[in-house]
């Protein structure tokens, strides 16, 4: 009986291992020439990183690499364990979206000591003494400036009170809000009428449910709101739900960020005014191209920031990827 139970556990474990052999780890046969790339995503629950993972995998396989995709689930401890596991299994290169730009430092240093190049995308690591072979990310400050322009456009000459739904843990979002504030400050300069006032920054968690709760509170605290800047699409969509429930959807204009499918659909339907859009697919592809350049000994741009572009309703109506 006891042995049967032990057997059950072992079989369950074996099954899970077997499942992987058919799935993520299909290239184990050794037929792939150029080695394995280990990728640790910040969280695959956000579609953004899923697109990075998919485009990275497709491009890497085209170049003859095998890719192991892991999910750090926003936990830097898990992420650095994943780095250690990559090192133990002898990968050719490591790609990270650093969960914590400081605390990931020691893990990157261990990779440096083992001679395995580390590439980052999205967030940049800023820990001291770490060597990052290449970085591809969004120019978040420029995106914040565009978001500010979109807000100015949406509110028109009337101006008004604006709320920010923030996610402070991510430095990328801090840069977005910095850019947004800068654009608004430039607009307000020399202006006495129709000014835009940023009345508060609330924590929207970058998630739909938290964005919803923060917006519901924000409506109570600031009844005269004219606009909301949410630092990504999930929190923008949460804010929209809160505004609709309060019957204030027509009064308050929303500017989001990202350009995920759900966000672009909302822009098409007039629920969100505009998004500075990011290009996660380009991030995956360019990261692989950097790895190839590195291994081929060619020079390449060590830090590449992809500018965002503003996406409005008119763009959504011509977007072939929306149906």
């Amino acid at each position: 009986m006891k042995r049967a139970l032990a057997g059950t556990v072992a079989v369950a474990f074996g099954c899970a291992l077997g499942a992987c052999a058919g799935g993520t780890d299909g290239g184990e046969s050794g037929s792939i020439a150029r080695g394995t790339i280990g990728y640790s995503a910040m969280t695959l629950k956000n579609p953004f990183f899923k697109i990075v993972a998919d485009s990275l995998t497709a491009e890497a396989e085209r170049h003859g690499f095998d890719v192991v995709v892991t999910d750090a689930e926003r936990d830097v401890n898990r992420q650095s364990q994943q780095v250690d596991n990559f090192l133990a299994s002898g990968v050719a290169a490591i790609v990270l979206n650093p969960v914590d730009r400081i605390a990931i430092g020691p893990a990157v240093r261990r990779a440096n000591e083992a001679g395995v190049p580390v590439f980052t995308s999205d967030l940049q690591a800023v820990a001291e003494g770490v060597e990052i072979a290449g970085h591809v990310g969004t120019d978040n400050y420029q995106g914040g400036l565009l978001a500010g322009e979109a807000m100015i456009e949406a509110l028109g000459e009337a101006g008004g009170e604006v709320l920010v739904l923030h996610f402070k843990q991510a430095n990328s979002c801090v840069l977005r809000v910095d850019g947004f504030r800068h654009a608004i400050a430039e607009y307000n300069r020399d202006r006495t009428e129709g000014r835009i006032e940023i009345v508060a920054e609330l924590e929207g968690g970058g998630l739909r449910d938290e964005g919803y709760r923060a917006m519901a509170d924000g409506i109570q605290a600031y009844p005269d709101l004219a606009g909301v800047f949410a630092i990504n699409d999930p929190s923008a969509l949460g804010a929209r739900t809160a505004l609709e429930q309060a019957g204030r959807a027509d009064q308050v204009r929303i500017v989001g960020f990202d350009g995920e499918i759900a966000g672009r659909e909302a822009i098409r339907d007039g629920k969100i005014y505009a998004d500075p859009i990011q290009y996660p697919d380009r991030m995956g592809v360019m990261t692989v191209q950097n790895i190839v350049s590195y291994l081929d000994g060619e020079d390449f741009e060590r830090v590449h920031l992809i500018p965002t572009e503003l996406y409005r309703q008119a763009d959504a109506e011509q977007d072939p990827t929306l149906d």
Partner: protein
Amino acid sequence: MPEGVGESAAGRWRRKLLDLLGRNLSVVVLALLCLISSVATWREQNPITSRSGGAVARQVLEACQTTCSVLVVARDTEADRVFAQAIEQGLDSAGARIAGRVFGQPRDVRLEVERIAAAGGSLDAIATHRIASEWGPVRTAGVPVFSPGSYHWPTFLTARNLLNVVNQNADIAIIALGMTLVILTAGIDLSVGSLLALAGVIAAVAAQEWFGGAAASPVGLLAAMLLGVGAAALGGLLSGTMVTAFRVPPFVATLGLMMLARGLALILAVGHQRRLVGGGAEGTPEAVRVDAAAFAWLGNGAVLGVPNPIVLMLVLFVAAHLLMTRTMFGRYVYAVGGNVEAARLSGVPVTAVLLAVYCLCGAFAGLAGIVDASRFEGGRPNAGELYELQVIAAVVVGGASLAGGRGRIAGTLIGAMIIAVIQNGLNIAGVASYEQKVVFGALILAAVLLDRLQPRLRRFRRKSL
């Protein structure tokens, strides 16, 4: 009927074996898991050692005797340098010419090849390891490339990986010690993950703001760490007080502390970040960075090649084992868990024992927090989320009964290692964390089921014998 009478020799052996298996089931499971992990991670291994370097040198000499000039390529790591040195020694002693050497990246190889060509030098062969033999400039240099042969071996069973397995889970194992004591008294402690974060943040903030930051002395850093552990122990004492003086169920008391401690850790971290940027802007809940390099020793240093967290874990396990098996306190803990009323009536200081147990559990969580903060060179307010569940899983899988009174420290060590091996085996084999959760859940259910079935099993075995 006395056992063994009228039994055949084969039957006796079978019974003994069954008995041994039954008593050490968790060890059997652990061994089985190691075996499965080894099979699943059977991969090609590429040696980078002094010996494989010598082998490459012999390959080169066999192919072109001593007449050729060779470029030696390696990365800028310790192992690579040893490997390259062995190649050079092998070539040197036979009188071959070394055209150049590269310790670096693919780009450095390209530049070196270009330099040799520009200087009009000849290049007849490249000697390197398997990894660098895939580099573009090595493949396109137009000369034969020599690298050591590979062999097959389980990646799981490499020294580096085995140390990884234990090191990555040393914090879980350390907390599991304290949790074992709590569970032995039929209690539970949900606050350990939050206390871990609180201890780490307090130690980091104290080191940065009170003990000199980058210039902090080892004594100052030690004081900062003790402050963190002390705060966590105090948290445990608070739970203990709620449980003993006010009869609050442990589940509820520690649930409250779990949120309280997490909130405090976040407030402290954000407050520190705000002071860093001059007080104006609001801080972010990122890790509180510790600038003193010595702070990282506990988490990232090693003694004789064994990472410090493992050493600390082993020392604590021996101490806890002695505490529970050789002292009056240990007997008291078992007595309280077995039957509180009986213990009280026979003169066991129940309240004091419970207070001490929760306090110790908090202190162990605090120690794990110090290890975590040291490992990441800073206190992370979000550290240790959901650790309580992993820790409880380790204790239960290690054979302790949630009803109290039954369980061993050694069992907990095995339990923690079972969890560690499952995690590592699945990680290395590339299984997504979602499937891992399913395996963990199944394992915990199986362990609890086994606990429930124990009396029935015993009856069953007696009957069958």
